[in-house]
């Protein structure tokens, strides 16, 4: 019997994502995204990656969604609503039908050809203390590159602030 928690969390992820795509207001879309990402964090927990799950919540839902919300709020209110969409025409409906059939075909092929069990997979359990050691040894190069990337991003952000302030104080673009 498949794990109820897995089904519930997967349902949360998918339904929230659909809601985020179909919502009339962009703000609701961002909220749907937030719920979807929380569901993903729950899936991480089911896989035993609690540490990653916590930072998934903290980085994605706590920071990225906040940035998205802030950006939406800066857009003027009239365009905050998605304009009325037309009903998909005949071509559109045929397209949806084809997309659905293709999805079914792919899913069927995967289920038949690849040995898939519906329970949680066996995962190698890495203790938290191991993570740091692994990062410094096996993934050392990746860590340094990541550090450089992050440093560049910070400098970029600061430069943006500096440029904007300079534009404001001089009063004209240069």
């Amino acid at each position, binding site marked *: 019997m498949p794990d109820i928690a897995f089904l519930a969390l997967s349902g949360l992820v998918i339904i929230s994502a659909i809601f985020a795509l179909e919502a009339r207001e962009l703000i609701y879309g961002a909220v749907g995204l937030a719920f979807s990402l929380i569901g993903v964090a729950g899936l991480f927990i089911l896989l035993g990656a609690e540490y990653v799950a916590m930072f998934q919540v903290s980085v994605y839902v706590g920071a990225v969604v906040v940035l998205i919300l802030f950006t939406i709020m800066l857009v003027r209110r009239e365009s905050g609503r998605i304009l009325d969409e037309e009903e998909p025409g005949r071509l559109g409906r045929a397209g949806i039908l084809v997309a659905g059939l293709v999805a079914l075909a792919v899913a069927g092929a995967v289920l038949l050809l690849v040995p898939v069990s519906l329970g949680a997979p066996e995962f190698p359990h890495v203790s938290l203390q191991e993570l*740091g050691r692994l990062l410094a040894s096996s993934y050392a190069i990746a860590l340094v590159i990541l550090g450089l990337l*992050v440093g560049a991003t910070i400098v970029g952000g600061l430069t943006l602030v500096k440029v904007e302030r300079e534009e404001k104080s001089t009063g004209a673009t240069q």
Partner: protein
Amino acid sequence: MGLDVWSLFAIFEVVVFLVAFPLLVFGWLMGARGKNPIRDAPFESGQTHLGEARQRYMMQYYPYLIMFIVFDVVAMFLFTWGLAFSGMSSSQNYLFLIFIAILVAPLGYASYLAGKRELW
């Protein structure tokens, strides 16, 4: 009962929900009295409100949000370092210290910019 920690967390949240949700419903039902333009206006200390409420406030601070995302990810890696710190060899520690140094340099730059007030 031998439940794992996340089930306990879920149960606790359900308990909070079971208290909060009926309270909200109760409060909503207690009041509903119909529309009244004076009561329903946003509060502006007695003045009638003018202009859009949703404007571009505090937009100049948005780089802070970007930096927050960046430092959030950094914190994730730093915590893995902190957890493994006592068990790691010194060369591995130096690697993480290089990582921190790469990040502290822009932070120093930020402090320097902060000193020049008009730019921060």
